[in-house]
C-alpha cells in the first residue's frame, strides 16, 4: 500500500465488500419481486419501491452502523488498531467512509434499475406520471420521472448517511455490535422524543420562538436530512431556488452532522482501560463468606442466563415503543389519535426489528469461538440448552412486547365500529407468526453465518422471498388460499426452521472463518 489512507481504505473495503454485495443483491431481488408481482400496476410498483427504500434506509443503516461502532471491539481487534502509529480518527474516518459507500451504492443501483425498467417496460407514460405524482403527493405540480428518480435516490441516501453518522457516534466503542446498535437506537429515539416533546410544549404553551428554533434545529437530527428531497412541493430541478429558501435548515444540517461526525472521530478507539479491581496477593474472599446457593437445575440455570441476556433488550424495546408512541401523541394536533392505536402500530413495526435482533443475539455470544468451547466442554444437556434458551427468549419477548401489543390491539379493536373481526384475528396471528419466524430464522442464520449483519440481511430476504413465493404459487394455482392452508404452511415453515436451528446448534455447523 502506498499511503496510510490507502491501507486503511483497503482494510475497510475488504471488510465491507461482501456487505455491499449482500445489500445490493438483496435490494435487486426485492425489486425483481416487486416488478414481478405488480407488473400490471405502476402505482403499486412505485409505492413498494418507496417502501422498500425506506425500510432499507432504516434497517441496513442500523446494521452497518452497528458494525462500524462495535465491530472492532467485538472482534477484539481494537488494541491492534490502537497500536498503529496513526491518530485514531484516520481509521475511524476510513471506516465511516467505506460504510457510507456500502450503504449508498445499493440505493443508487436500485433506483437506477427501477428508473431504467420504468422507462423500458411498456407502461403508459400517463400512468407512470400519475403514479409518481400520487406517490410524491405533488398536488397540481407535475413531476417527471427523473424528478422522482432523483428525489427517491437523494432522500434515502441523505437519510442513510445521517442515520449512519448518528448511530456510529452514539454506539462508538461499545463492546459488541448488539450493544452498539442498542445504544445507538436508544439515543436516536431519545433525540426524537425530545424534539417531539419540545414541539408539544411550544404548541401547547404558544411559544412561537421555540417552535421556530426547533424547526431550524431539526435538520441536524438523525435521519432528518433524508426528508428534505422527499417534500412534494418542489421538484429537485429547482434545487437552487429551493436551497436558498431552505438555507438556514441546510446550514443547521451541515453544522449538526459535522459536529456529530467530529464527536465520532474524536471518540473512536478511546476505550477506557478500567483498572483490574482484584488485587494480586490480597485475599478476596473473606473468611465466613458464603456463596449463594447453586442453581437448582440445568433448566433453571439456562433460563436464568437467557433471561439476563434477552430481558434488557426487550425492556429497552418496550421503552422505545412507548417513547415513539408519546412522540406521535404529542405531535398530534387533532386530539383524535388514540394511545392504543398508535402503540399497536408503532409496536408492530418495531417488534419485527426487536425479534430479529433478539434472534441474532440468542447465540451471538455462545458461538464466539472461545465461548463456544466453554459451554460445549461442560456436561451440557444440548437439547435442554437449545430448547430452554429458545423458549425463554421467546417467552421474555412475548411477555414484555407481545402481551402489551395484543392488549393494545384488543383495546383498539373494541373501539372500532366493527369490533374484533375474524379478519383481524387472522392478521394478528399472521403478524405473530411472522415475528416468531423472523426470530427463529435469525437465530438459525446467525449460527450458520456467525455474522450478525449477514444474518439480518438474509433473514429479511428469506422472509420476503418465502412469502412472495408462497402467495405467487397459491394465486397462480388455487387462487385465494384457504385459512387452513395458510396455517398449515406457517406451522410447517416454523417447524422446519426450528429443526434446522436445532441441527445447526447440535452439530456446531457454521462458517468458522
Amino acid at each position: 500500500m502506498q499511503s496510510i489512507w490507502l491501507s486503511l481504505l483497503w482494510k475497510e473495503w475488504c471488510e465491507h465488500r461482501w456487505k455491499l454485495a449482500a445489500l445490493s443483491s438483496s435490494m435487486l431481488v426485492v425489486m425483481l419481486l416487486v416488478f414481478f408481482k405488480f407488473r400490471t400496476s405502476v402505482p403499486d410498483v412505485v409505492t413498494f419501491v418507496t417502501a422498500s427504500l425506506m425500510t432499507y434506509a432504516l434497517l441496513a443503516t442500523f446494521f452497518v452502523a452497528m458494525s462500524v461502532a462495535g465491530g472492532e471491539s467485538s472482534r477484539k481487534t481494537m488494541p491492534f488498531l490502537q497500536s498503529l502509529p496513526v491518530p485514531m480518527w484516520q481509521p475511524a474516518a476510513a471506516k465511516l467512509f467505506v460504510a457510507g459507500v456500502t450503504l449508498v451504492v445499493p440505493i443508487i443501483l436500485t433506483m437506477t434499475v427501477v428508473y431504467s425498467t420504468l422507462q423500458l417496460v411498456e407502461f403508459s407514460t400517463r400512468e407512470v406520471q400519475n403514479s409518481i405524482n400520487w406517490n410524491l403527493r405533488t398536488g397540481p405540480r407535475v413531476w417527471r420521472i427523473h424528478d422522482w428518480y432523483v428525489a427517491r435516490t437523494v432522500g434515502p441516501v441523505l437519510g442513510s448517511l445521517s442515520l449512519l453518522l448518528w448511530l456510529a457516534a452514539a454506539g462508538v466503542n461499545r463492546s459488541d455490535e448488539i450493544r452498539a446498535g442498542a445504544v445507538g437506537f436508544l439515543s436516536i429515539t431519545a433525540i426524537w422524543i425530545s424534539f417531539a416533546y419540545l414541539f408539544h410544549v411550544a404548541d401547547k404553551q404558544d411559544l412561537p420562538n421555540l417552535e421556530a428554533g426547533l424547526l431550524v434545529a431539526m435538520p441536524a437530527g438523525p435521519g432528518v436530512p433524508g426528508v428534505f428531497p422527499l417534500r412534494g412541493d418542489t421538484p429537485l430541478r429547482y434545487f437552487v431556488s429551493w436551497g436558498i429558501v431552505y438555507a438556514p435548515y441546510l446550514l443547521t444540517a451541515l453544522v449538526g452532522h459535522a459536529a456529530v461526525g467530529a464527536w465520532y472521530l474524536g471518540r473512536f478507539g478511546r476505550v477506557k482501560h478500567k483498572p483490574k479491581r482484584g488485587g494480586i496477593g490480597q485475599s478476596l474472599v473473606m473468611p465466613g463468606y458464603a456463596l449463594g446457593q447453586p442453581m437448582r437445575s440445568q433448566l433453571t440455570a439456562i433460563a436464568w442466563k437467557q433471561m439476563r441476556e434477552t430481558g434488557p433488550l426487550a425492556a429497552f424495546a418496550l421503552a422505545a415503543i412507548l417513547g415513539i408512541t408519546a412522540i406521535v401523541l404529542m405531535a398530534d394536533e387533532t386530539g383524535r389519535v388514540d394511545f392504543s392505536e398508535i402503540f399497536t402500530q408503532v409496536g408492530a413495526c418495531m417488534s419485527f426489528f426487536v425479534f430479529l435482533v433478539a434472534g441474532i443475539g440468542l447465540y451471538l455470544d455462545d458461538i464466539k469461538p472461545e465461548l463456544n468451547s466453554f459451554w460445549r466442554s461442560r456436561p451440557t444437556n444440548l437439547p435442554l440448552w437449545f430448547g430452554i434458551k429458545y423458549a425463554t427468549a421467546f417467552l421474555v419477548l412475548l411477555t414484555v412486547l407481545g402481551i402489551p401489543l395484543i392488549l393494545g390491539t384488543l383495546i383498539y379493536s373494541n373501539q372500532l365500529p366493527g369490533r374484533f373481526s375474524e379478519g383481524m384475528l387472522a392478521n394478528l396471528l399472521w403478524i405473530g407468526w411472522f415475528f416468531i419466524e423472523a426470530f427463529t430464522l435469525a437465530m438459525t442464520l446467525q449460527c450458520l453465518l456467525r455474522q450478525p449483519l449477514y444474518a439480518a440481511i438474509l433473514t429479511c430476504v428469506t422472509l420476503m422471498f418465502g412469502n412472495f413465493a408462497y402467495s405467487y404459487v397459491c394465486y397462480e394455482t388455487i387462487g385465494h388460499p384457504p385459512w387452513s392452508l395458510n396455517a398449515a404452511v406457517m406451522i410447517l415453515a416454523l417447524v422446519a426452521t426450528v429443526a434446522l436451528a436445532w441441527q445447526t446448534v447440535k452439530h456446531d455447523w457454521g462458517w468458522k472463518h
Partner: protein
Amino acid sequence: MGVPAIELQAVDKSFRKNRVLRGTTFQVEAGCTFAFLGRNGAGKTAAIRMLMGLLSCDDGVIRVLGLDPQVDPIGVRSRVGYLAEDQTMYGWMRCEEILRFMAPFYATWDHQLALRYARDFEVPLQEKIKHLSKGQNVRLGLVLALAHRPELVILDDPALGLDSIMRKQFNRDLITHLQGEGRTVFYSFHLLYEVEPVADEVAILDQGRIVRQSETEALRSDVKQIVLSREAAVAVGETASVLQRREEGRELALVVDKAQVVIDHLRREGVEHRVVDLNLDEIFEAYVTGTNEAEPPEVAATQRIAGEA
C-alpha cells in the same frame, strides 16, 4: 491393571490439507501426572479438544476414562475437569454467579470446595468476569474445572496468563494436591522447567506425531549430550539415535537417545568423550528442532530456515 485414564491409538486428524495429527498413539495411566509437550501448532490443542469430544478424529481410537468422547461426550465431560487454552467465560456474569450457574451441570459439584478454591486462588467473587485480569480469569477457570472433584483434570496450557509466583504455586500446591488425591492430571505446558519437578510422565508431540513418551526420570537418564572430537564422531557409528548434532569448534556435541548404549560403546572403543546431563527443556529442543536420525523425513522449520539462510 485398570482402565487407562486416556488412550489414543493411531489417531489421525486433518483440517482440509493441514494434517495436524498423524497416527498419534499414547496412553495415560490413572493417577498419573502427564505433561503433554509440543511447540505451538504441534497439535496439542486439537488432541485435547478430541479428548473432550469437541472435535472428531478422522481415524483411530480415543478413550477417556474408558468412554468414547464421540459417543458419550456428556459422560466424559461430567467426569473430567477441563480448562481450555485462553478460556473465555460470559463477561457479564459475576464470578459468584458463574459458580452458581455451573453447579447444576455437575452431579458431583461441591459448592464448599468451589468456595475454598476461590479463596485459595484469590478469585474476586463479586467482580464481573469481563473485569478480571488474565491471571484471575485462568484461576476462575481452574475453580470451575476442579469444583466437581473430577477423576481426570485436563489443562490446556494453564500457565498462560499466570505470573511466576502463581505458576509455582500451581505446580507445587495444586498439582501436588491433585496427585495426593489420586487424580489423573493431563496438561499441556510450554514452560518445561516447571513441569519437570511434578510430571510423572511426558509425551513430546511434534508435527502431529508423538516422538517420545516416557517417565520423566527415564527420559532424563536416556537422553544425554555427548561431546567428542569431530574425528572421533565416526566411532559413534550406528549405535546411536542422534537427536541433535551441533559443531562447537573442533568438537561435536551430539544429543543422543539411549545414551548409556553409546557411552558403553565409546568406552569399549576407547574414545575420549564428555557426557552432559540435560534438562527437560534441552531434551525437548533436541526432539523438536534437532536432526532426528530416527525420524529423518521431518525437518524442523527453524532448521529449514537456518539452512536456507
